[in-house]
């Protein structure tokens, strides 16, 4: 059958964890919410939570073959916890484990051996890059992995779609009774937004820490009433890999041109006034757009309400300059962000569900005026791919892309018209991550295209004398320079099911042909 975007979705997918529901529209499944029940064990007053080692923790947690365990990705490419836990599980002879990790990074490459040996047989994630993503694309697992959005992951956990047996929470700081924060310790990572649903909905919750402190810790982000066991290890991560290296504004003249054009669109949209709110990724062009917005706000004396998302030092600067009233932070990208979270009351943490879950009483993305997005590919229906490269190999995932596009008043994709000879605009994206109905504008260095659904915006841009062209025309310009790429061939086997934030299947990823 075809979903509403014309993507072919099989009626049944072997090994898929629930009934196949094809995507029907971005706002189609906003019905009643029923949250799942959690079975937990009460703790006696004299019980000790701090155990001797990981082996004891895993034994006590009752982890068995076939179970699902979860991890958060706030330690990013510096995370030691996933590998540490998986090596221990493997050495204890436990097999057929499903991993629900909010993201997978190159540092997690030892998972490949665990997949080969049958220790790991399933994966749920919102983003993955590096050797594990390559191995999945080549079909290392028998059953497809599930990729969701950041908000969609919380939805899946809260609804019971994903039942977590044991959540392993990398904890930068933890006290002796299981109160956790991410802002202190040698492996500080800031907010723990992506770990909260795991802590609330897993049957067993384990805090793994390299900074055990006396009771009670302050501040508390995950509280003791959700934590079963605590284990102390030498190091939960490598600080070098925890903070991002991508938080610099581009110096590339093409990127700066795109940012200047995007700023013009934002100004013409009428949204940039007192109370303005926005989010942007940490990519070079996105940050350059933020720099343009900063200048305009200073010039016109505009005071914004909030910035949200993964937070960089650049956003912190804008907060401290008084350009915005506050920051809602689901993940800190750098040390400046961690420091600000620690010291500035206007810089507040938020959970992944508060950030982007469509099935709650209103996520933060719904309050966004502007979202600046990236794209690997965008098609003439404005569908965006950030999941696979144009060669069909998984190299990313939605993360908050679809959540913010759906919630914000104006979702702008900024991209070079072609990157390394690959035109960004294609007839059909290799994989749909975000549906075109939620994407409003594409800004490239050679022109701006507006989704025809947004006639109101086209009128505003024309009034401001901003040249708009059709996305088809922009595509032709690109192909005139690069030539038309040949379509890639794929195998029939499905390696990943890509879920929209509401849990419907927006696309599938097939095994690549070598």
């Amino acid at each position, binding site marked *: 059958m075809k979903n509403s975007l014309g993507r072919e979705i099989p009626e049944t997918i072997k090994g898929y964890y629930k009934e196949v529901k094809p995507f029907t529209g971005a706002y189609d499944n906003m019905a009643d919410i029923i949250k799942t029940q959690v079975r937990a064990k009460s703790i006696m007053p004299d019980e000790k939570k701090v155990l001797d080692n990981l082996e004891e923790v895993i034994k006590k947690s009752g982890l068995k073959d076939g179970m699902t365990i979860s991890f958060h990705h706030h330690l990013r490419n510096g995370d030691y916890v996933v590998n540490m836990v998986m090596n221990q599980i493997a050495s204890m002879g436990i097999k057929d484990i499903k991993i629900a990790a909010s993201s997978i990074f190159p540092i997690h490459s030892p998972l490949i051996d665990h997949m080969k040996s049958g220790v790991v047989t399933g994966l749920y994630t919102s983003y993955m890059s590096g050797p594990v993503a390559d191995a999945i694309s080549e079909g290392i697992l028998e059953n497809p992995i599930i990729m969701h959005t950041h908000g969609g992951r919380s939805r899946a956990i809260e609804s019971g779609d994903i039942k977590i047996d044991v959540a392993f929470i990398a904890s930068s700081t933890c006290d002796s009774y299981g109160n956790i924060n991410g802002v202190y310790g040698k492996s500080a990572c800031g907010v723990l937004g992506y770990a909260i649903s795991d802590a609330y909905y897993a049957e067993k919750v384990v805090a793994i820490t390299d900074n055990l402190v006396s009771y009670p810790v302050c501040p508390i982000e995950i509280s003791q009433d959700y934590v079963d066991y605590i284990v102390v290890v030498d190091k939960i991560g490598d600080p070098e890999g925890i903070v991002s290296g991508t938080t610099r504004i581009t110096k590339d003249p093409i990127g700066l041109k795109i940012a200047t054009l995007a700023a013009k669109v934002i100004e013409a949209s009428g949204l940039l006034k007192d109370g303005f709110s926005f989010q942007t990724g940490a990519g070079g062009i996105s940050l350059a757009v933020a720099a343009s917005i900063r200048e305009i706000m200073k010039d016109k004396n505009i005071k914004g309400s909030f910035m949200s998302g993964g937070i960089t030092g650049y956003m912190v600067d804008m907060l401290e300059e008084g350009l915005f009233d506050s920051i809602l932070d689901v993940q800190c990208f750098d040390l400046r962000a961690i420091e600000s979270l620690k010291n500035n009351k206007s810089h507040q943490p938020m959970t992944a569900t508060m950030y982007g879950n469509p099935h709650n009483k209103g996520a933060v993305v719904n309050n966004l005026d502007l979202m600046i997005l990236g794209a690997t590919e965008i098609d003439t229906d404005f569908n965006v791919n950030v999941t696979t490269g144009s*060669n069909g190999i998984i190299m990313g995932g939605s993360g908050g892309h679809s959540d913010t596009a759906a919630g914000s008043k104006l979702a702008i994709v900024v991209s070079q018209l072609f990157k390394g000879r690959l035109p960004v605009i294609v007839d059909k994206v290799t994989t749909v991550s975000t549906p075109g109905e939620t994407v409003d504008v594409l800004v490239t260095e050679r022109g701006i295209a507006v989704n025809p659904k947004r006639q109101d915006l086209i009128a505003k841009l024309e009034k401001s004398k901003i040249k708009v062209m059709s996305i088809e025309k922009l595509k032709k310009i690109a192909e005139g*320079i*690069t030539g038309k*790429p*040949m379509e*890639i061939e794929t195998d029939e086997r499905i390696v990943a099911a890509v879920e929209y934030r509401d849990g419907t299947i927006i696309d599938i990823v097939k095994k690549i042909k070598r």
Partner: protein
Amino acid sequence: MVINKPARAGTLESSDIYIMVQPNQGQGIEIQLDSIVLKQFGKQIQNVMRQTLKDLEIEDIKIIANDRGALDYTIRARLETAINRAN
């Protein structure tokens, strides 16, 4: 034109191509191509190279190329330069 000695042109920067040429006396045209867009543009890159060789009347050559997403005119320019240096 004849390839007398090994020579090279280009860089491994994004949107460039690094080309090495070597003599291949009596063995015809041999192209070893690696590219970040091999699947999408591999044939096109080969076509540009072969057309360039035809225009320069080169019949025996070994080309080893590492493409980083170069456009056709870059590929042609780098190949011509490498060949001139091999002369």
